[in-house]
């Protein structure tokens, strides 16, 4: 999991640039310039690792994640998957990429269709990819997935509004892992949740990563979260990559002033730092229902 493996990285962006037009006015919109959301970023994600991408508002971290998943086209630069240029992938090639790489959203309420049952939402990916055409088999798989994220299989018949925020995020994760992806990108997966629920979801992601051998990219504003979840961390600011380093190294000896500033700004909890058991133990938390 060190990431220092030979061969091509699992996913990679090279000299990536994404500019958005800046406009002014509502009725007569006019372009007054451009803003570079991502500005010349080169970054690799290695198979099996957990990479944190950290930054404040406007750092470009979410834009970078979306380009990495071909959800957004870059202005220039290259996106690679297993060494292959997939920047402009279309059609069947893109569908195949979608299966291998999935996104977990920040807001589980906004990413689930309120008129669809939880079961239907999780079964969606199977329909899109023409998998498990038999209804009973699909239902069984949905039940398995719900249990894998610590929910009761009977929840398949409920609607999103009947669930708590934590349960909805579990459903979002179940849907993301439904097709057995290799790469999971989680964009601020816990920032909309209550404190006591955040740890449940983080530890679920950690456990699933171990069980399924997932590569994880975690987009976060919170450096403390990344410390518990990731092997490496990339710090972004105003579209640029400030620093990339193994977690232990970056927190102990940050090389850049901005990284130091970010670390210094995190409010510290005094008193003994009770730290949980270090190794990620599978099933340690995924059984609790939120």
């Amino acid at each position: 999991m060190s990431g220092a493996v030979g061969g091509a990285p699992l996913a990679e962006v090279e000299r990536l640039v994404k500019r958005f037009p800046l406009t002014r006015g509502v009725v007569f919109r006019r372009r007054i310039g451009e803003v570079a959301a991502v500005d010349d970023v080169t970054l690799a994600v290695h198979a099996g690792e957990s990479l944190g991408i950290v930054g404040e508002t406007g750092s470009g971290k979410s834009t970078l994640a979306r380009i990495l998943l071909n959800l957004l086209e870059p202005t220039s630069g290259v996106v690679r998957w297993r060494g292959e240029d997939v920047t402009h992938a279309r059609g069947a090639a893109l569908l195949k990429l979608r299966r291998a790489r999935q996104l977990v959203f920040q807001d589980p309420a906004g990413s689930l269709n309120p008129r669809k049952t939880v079961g239907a939402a999780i079964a969606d990916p199977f329909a899109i990819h023409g998998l498990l055409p038999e209804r009973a088999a699909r239902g069984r798989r949905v039940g398995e997935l719900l249990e894998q994220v610590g929910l009761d299989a009977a929840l398949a018949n409920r609607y999103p509004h009947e669930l708590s925020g934590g349960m909805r995020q579990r459903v979002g994760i179940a849907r993301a892992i439904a097709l057995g992806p290799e790469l999971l990108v989680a964009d601020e997966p816990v920032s909309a949740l209550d404190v006591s629920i955040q740890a449940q979801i983080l530890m679920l992601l950690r456990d699933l990563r171990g069980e399924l051998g997932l590569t994880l990219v975690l987009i976060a504003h919170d450096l403390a979260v990344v410390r518990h979840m990731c092997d490496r961390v990339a710090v972004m600011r105003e579209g640029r990559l400030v620093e990339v380093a193994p977690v232990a190294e970056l927190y102990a000896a940050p090389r850049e002033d901005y990284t130091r500033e970010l670390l210094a700004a995190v409010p510290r909890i005094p008193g003994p730092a009770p730290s949980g058991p270090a190794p990620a133990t599978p099933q340690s938390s995924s059984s609790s229902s939120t």
Partner: protein
Amino acid sequence: MSALEQPSPAAAEPVLRVEDLRVAFDTREGLVQAVAGVSFAVAPGRTLGIVGESGSGKTVAATTAMGLSRGPRVRISGRVLLDGEELLAASPERLRALRGAQIAMVFQDPLSALHPLLRIGDQIGEAVRAHRSDASRAAARARAVELLEWVAIPDAARRVDAYPHELSGGMRQRAMIAMAIANEPRVLIADEPTTALDVTVQRQILALLRRLRDDLGMAMVFITHDLGVVAETADEVAVMYAGRIVEQAPAHELFAAPRHPYTWGLLRSMPRLEAPAGAALVPIPGRPPSLIDPPSGCRFHPRCPYVRERHREVEPALEPVAGALGHRVACLLSEAERRALWARLAAGATPEQARAAVGQAAPAAAPPAAEPPA
């Protein structure tokens, strides 16, 4: 009530006292007991941090103290005393006169608290003129510039004419704080004032609030879900769960020797920069209870790893911890048990290991994790 019998070490007379506050909302689903008997007091120049999750009642307790939750479907009882004056029974006119002048509030989201179509200088000026009708427009504007300088908005003379959307989130929060302190209130209630901000901006706003509290000698009530933020802001901390204060102590004491299993759970589930890299978090199982039909006995019992049969029936009172001045806890475990359990947890034991080491039998019934879904 016993909060009042145990004055904080800096023994200034409290300016705000809340006694046995109860707030319930009549909804179609039933009576929601948002605040179920809460007492606290804050002295000038001091900060009380109220920590809790959504639904803990922390915001309702504060807005009720401000007289902001009155309504036909709201049942309020208890006492809220501002300098000895009872606010719950005050007339709407009297409340309007006090709000802003004596007691003010800062909210999480300045965009929804500021009027989008008015220049911030005009909004601050209005806050000034609301309580000083003799102030001219020009004087109010001059005061607005002064206030913006006070909250460290650069180029205040120009920014006074800006609209809220023209300012960054941090600047908007500063403008809202300027409005709240326009009349130098005696009490400032800050409800998650930095939750929507980036950490570097959060740090500046926390420093600003501390400085204003000291300069003006305000009593501050700081509401947050973040234990790290409360540690940097509060002299005293009240931890709320399901409408009650479950633990209250001087801030340093709360973090050094927490006594309530819910506080332990929060401390162990929060990510920390100083934790060993890759250390696991220990989540609190389950989720906060419904306030329409709260759990019997101790309200935390369905999620508590140390629950006993008796805890499902007996409701714990918030009582002083022996030998710890100003520390109170609502927990049915004995003080010896609590000390032993926390010693194990602080050393890195899981709740199960701590329970076994202290010789406590496994929970009488189902483990707390197995909570039925919605």
